[in-house]
């Protein structure tokens, strides 16, 4: 039960980047300098904002700071923010390594170009923040890891209802036209979170991050720049050290679930715990910090803040939390495995519910896919 869950005290280390995943990445040699070294005296710091395999919602979340964004502009010269302004990459390339104080990077990594820019920004930046659920965990686009590039291409260019493609034309990384050659970047088989590609200093989860937490980040940076306050320890997840259940306004009665109900079938009483009403809700296994926005409009949590502190695999812990809340109408001790299986089978799409935002960083990471991959290395998602 989430309310009984004791978070390890002082557990500042993030669980966004499980060790075994980190060790599998290729960016170990790109060590970030210590942020403390960057404390400027009076001068403005330099910042960069960039989007990878993202939707643009993270950029919008920054615009949604409204006038408060002036607090950021007051202490920082923004060197790059492609969605809003015509900033130059060659300026970034020309800068000395480490001369950008902080980069906010949103989106995961799914093609050659994004990977190149991520590595470039790592080199130029003292602090890299994985901004938003996609950079932290792969996010919803990470659900593409149930297949691979060929699976995605097959759907998009061959089998969608409205596609007319009798000659089986598939986009190519290099293509001859009468005047010359056109190229496209290579799309990877799988989505990776940012820390699976480069070293990451801080994690700001959420899809997109919420104002309260963005302002925590801004406050930390402003305090650092203006007053020389120390930055949080490397690896900090900028959210709360508890589960979402502890932020939830709904009433919890420690009632057990007799039947799984899908949200569109629910006769909501608008006050009691959605999970206790039978709806799959990830509040129990999701880090707090969003003020329960979805639940306040009567929709269950889908986990965009990632696992609670101390957990490695949000999906696995959701499954075990929910299984332990099932009511099979008899004494727990008499439940057979078949009883439990029958009830759990009512969860029609465990992958889509439990790993909605974290498939790319879960212990599963990706499916082998129904199509042959580019390389037979068996290491999906890595740079081709």
């Amino acid at each position, binding site marked *: 039960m989430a309310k009984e869950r004791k978070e390890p005290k002082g557990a500042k280390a993030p669980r966004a980047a499980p060790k075994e995943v980190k060790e599998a990445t290729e960016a170990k040699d790109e060590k970030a300098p210590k942020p403390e070294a960057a404390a400027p005296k009076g001068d403005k710091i330099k910042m960069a904002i960039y989007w990878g395999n993202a939707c643009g*919602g993270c950029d919008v979340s920054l615009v949604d700071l409204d006038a408060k964004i002036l607090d950021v502009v007051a202490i920082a010269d923004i060197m790059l923010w492609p969605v809003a302004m015509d*900033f130059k990459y060659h300026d970034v390339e020309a800068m000395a390594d480490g001369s950008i104080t902080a980069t906010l990077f949103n989106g995961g990594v799914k093609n*050659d170009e994004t990977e*190149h820019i991520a590595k470039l920004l790592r080199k130029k930046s003292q602090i890299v923040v994985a901004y938003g659920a996609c950079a932290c965990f792969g996010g919803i*686009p990470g659900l593409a890891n149930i297949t691979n590039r060929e699976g995605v291409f097959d759907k998009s260019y061959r089998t969608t209802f409205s596609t007319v493609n009798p000659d089986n*034309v598939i*986009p190519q990384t290099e293509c001859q*036209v009468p005047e010359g050659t*056109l190229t496209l*970047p290579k799309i990877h088989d799988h989505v990776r979170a940012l820390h699976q590609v480069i070293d990451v200093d801080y994690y700001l989860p959420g899809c997109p991050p919420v104002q309260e937490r963005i302002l925590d980040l801004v406050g930390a940076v402003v305090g650092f720049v203006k007053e020389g306050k120390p930055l949080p320890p490397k690896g900090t997840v900028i959210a709360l050290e508890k589960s979402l259940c502890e932020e939830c306004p709904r009433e919890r009665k420690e009632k057990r679930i007799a039947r799984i109900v899908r949200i569109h079938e629910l006769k909501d009483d608008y006050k009691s715990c959605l999970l206790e009403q039978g709806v799959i809700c990830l509040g129990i296994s999701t880090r707090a910090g969003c003020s329960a926005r979805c639940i306040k409009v009567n929709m269950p949590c889908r986990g965009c803040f990632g696992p609670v502190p101390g957990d490695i695999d949000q999906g696995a812990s959701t499954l075990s939390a929910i299984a332990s809340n099932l009511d099979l109408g008899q004494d727990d001790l008499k439940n057979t495995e078949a009883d439990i299986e029958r009830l759990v089978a009512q969860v029609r799409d465990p992958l889509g519910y439990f790993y909605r935002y974290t498939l790319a960083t879960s212990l599963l990471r990706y499916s082998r896919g129904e199509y042959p991959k580019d390389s037979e290395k068996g290491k999906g998602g890595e740079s081709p």
Partner: protein
Amino acid sequence: MTHEKDTAPHAGGKYKQVSIDPITRLEGHGKIEIFLDDAGEVKEAYFQVPELRGFERFVIGRPGEEVARIVPRICGVCPVAHHMASTKALDMAFSTKPTPTAEKLRRLMYAGYYLYDHTLHFYFLGGPDFVVGPTAPKAERNILGVIGKVGMETAGQVIKYRSNGQKIIALLGGKATHPVSGLPGGVSKFITEEERETLVALAEGSVAFSEFTLQVFHDIVLKNKSYVDMITDPRWALRTYYMGLVNDKNQPDYYDGDVRVVGPDGKEFLKFKPKDYLKHIAEHVEPYSYCKYTYLKAIGWKGFVDGPDSGIYRVAPLGRLNVADSMSTPKAQSHWKEMRSTLGGGPVHMTLATHWARLIELLNASETLEALVQDKSIVSRDIRAPIGRPGEGVGIVEAARGTLIHHYVLDEQGMMKDANLIVATTNNHAAISLSIRNAAKAVIHKGDVSDGTLNTVEMAFRAYDPCFGCATHALPGELPLEVHLRGADGSVMGTLARDGLRRHPKEG
């Protein structure tokens, strides 16, 4: 396609290749490849979209009702459009219809979304080219440059109303970016009278703000002869078919209605129910872009040409205002008439006039918004209709950037069996490619590929407010612009790095 580079010399050897990669101030990623002949004139220009995410594949197997919470990540700038198209597809797929209260709340959210999104485009994305100038220093061609021109007081209004649009979405949908309240047969969130009063306060003044923005457009753009010359230059126009959702009076309806298509002559060519879209629209694939191209099936794919014999059509503000017989609100109606009469009376083919059309829609949405919040019946708790047996459903809305189609097939358990998404910008993709080619030919001469000239080429796509995140169901990073000048042997003779990324040769 052949992938061998070392074949016998082809015609391409004669041309210099200029890459604009990426194009900027839009949502998503695109690049432009321009081929110049020996005299520095444009031989051909190609527009490419370099990403694909594959939403149509990975929604399969998910519970139908959950898809409305997944597809908004196609685009974080217009998540409301995807959430709404999805919810409407689910209405049909679950054989239900929203209750009257639920429909009003959805429409209210949608009007708030238009207030936010059209304001964002004019002041942040497309407008800087006019307000600051197409060839102004690149460091000023952005919202800060706009603020410098229009002053802090106006900037405060822009911040306020863009934000109010977002706050309306958040109140009704939980979050402004990626709202969650849409369910088959209704919405999850009812509102209290107190919340309605909050909505009244958020909507208040949006009509006046929209009228003010139209005045800014008149003063800065329409009173400037060089801009008017550019807008009315036939090389910046395309004669295409147009598409948009209309109500029963043939007025644009962003949330619901039938799809109307008019020809280049302005006459109605087609009108169909959303569920019949596959009879009329198909998608074509080219090997050099990850994004597909839609066309009218009745005419067919005839390549990158405009005119009545080509199946290419256009959507977004210009498309919607061209399929309209009138507008649904009085102030927008008077501006619509003014635009039509100023620009020739019939359908407007001038691509850059899309900016004007967009602001008329901003006014239309604001008038709708101010009226909807006054309706006291929206506080009813009757927000959910019963659902029926799962099956197939099509939901069509007008995203800010054009007609958006979500089509789902559910199994008997209501799980996703198949999906098809035709998004706003895909509908405009062929026309955008044409507009870019025409613009390149119009403005690049004697090999002039300076920053200002290339930015002027980029204005061709900015008019459409494209979202290539949507178009490829992907939103990759936007990359900077670089120009390579290549000699006949393909070697790089010079590099004009506007945004200086070095692209590395890709493996074949």
